[in-house]
């Protein structure tokens, strides 16, 4: 197979399963750039991203015969590279994580919530570098299972079904984790909402 041509997905999968020359290079060139950017976003640096993408493609190469086409080839590759990147990140993180149960609102018979008075737009808040860093730091404190869902849904913009496919989870579980992640992040951002984070 000529890597410069663009076969449709079924043709490419068939060629990969046959071990046809050039098919794997086509796969790497078709999806490599997007997967590399994904890994850089997850890991925050190119050195680790290279390792994660390489690990991911090697796994894909080994597992292509067991690919069942329930998801698209792209989603399947994203899932493999995402997991490779998350495994690397997991090994260097955790020390600042907070248990999710400590961050969720307690609603007995009714909710207790102060009236929030936001004096500036969200855009103006994130325009200040130190507040943007504060928000990112709070996202990093979410337990990984929740942070990953928040990141895929609210930051990367994948829908619930795509997120579930990438994580190998059910849509129901993704929805529950997304809500908990958002609720927990809200709790972590309350000092900011109360004006307790230095504004300059």
């Amino acid at each position, binding site marked *: 197979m000529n890597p410069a041509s663009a076969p449709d997905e079924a043709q490419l999968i068939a060629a990969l399963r046959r071990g046809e020359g050039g098919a794997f290079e086509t796969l790497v060139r078709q999806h490599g750039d997007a997967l590399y950017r994904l890994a850089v976003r997850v890991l925050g640096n190119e050195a680790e991203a290279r390792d994660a993408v390489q690990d991911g493609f090697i796994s894909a190469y080994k597992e292509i015969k067991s690919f069942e086409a329930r998801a698209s080839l792209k989603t399947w590759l994203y899932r493999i590279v995402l997991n490779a990147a998350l495994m690397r990140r997991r090994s260097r993180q955790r020390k600042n994580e907070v248990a999710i149960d400590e961050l969720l609102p307690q*609603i007995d018979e009714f909710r207790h919530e102060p009236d929030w008075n936001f004096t500036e737009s969200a855009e103006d808040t994130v325009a200040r570098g130190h507040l943007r860093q504060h*928000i990112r730091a709070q996202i990093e404190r979410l337990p990984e299972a929740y942070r990953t869902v928040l990141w895929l849904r609210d930051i990367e913009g994948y829908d619930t079904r795509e997120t579930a496919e990438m994580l190998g989870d059910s849509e129901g579980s993704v929805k529950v984790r997304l809500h908990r992640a958002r609720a927990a992040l809200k709790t972590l951002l309350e000092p900011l909402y109360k004006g307790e984070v230095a504004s300059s």
Partner: protein
Amino acid sequence: MKRILLKLEYLMFKHVPGMLTCAEADAFISDYVDGLLPAAQRRKFERHIRMCRPCRAYLKAYRRTVTLARLSAAEQRAPAVTRMPEELVHAILAACK
């Protein structure tokens, strides 16, 4: 006095047909913010929000949280790198021969 009023509110939410309690409304908030709540549930949720000040305040802060998360990561979503390095392509292909 405030506690009594809250208790009365809770009893109304709990016993008036078609009203959600705060805990029930909480389960809908994520889909509501994403615009994914079916019409009948959305109407129930909005009815609760109109009548419940704490849930209205919570929804306001919850929405802001989602917006701030998205905006704060905008730079991370658009990293300077756009292409996978060619030497990485070669390394992958060499490892998979």
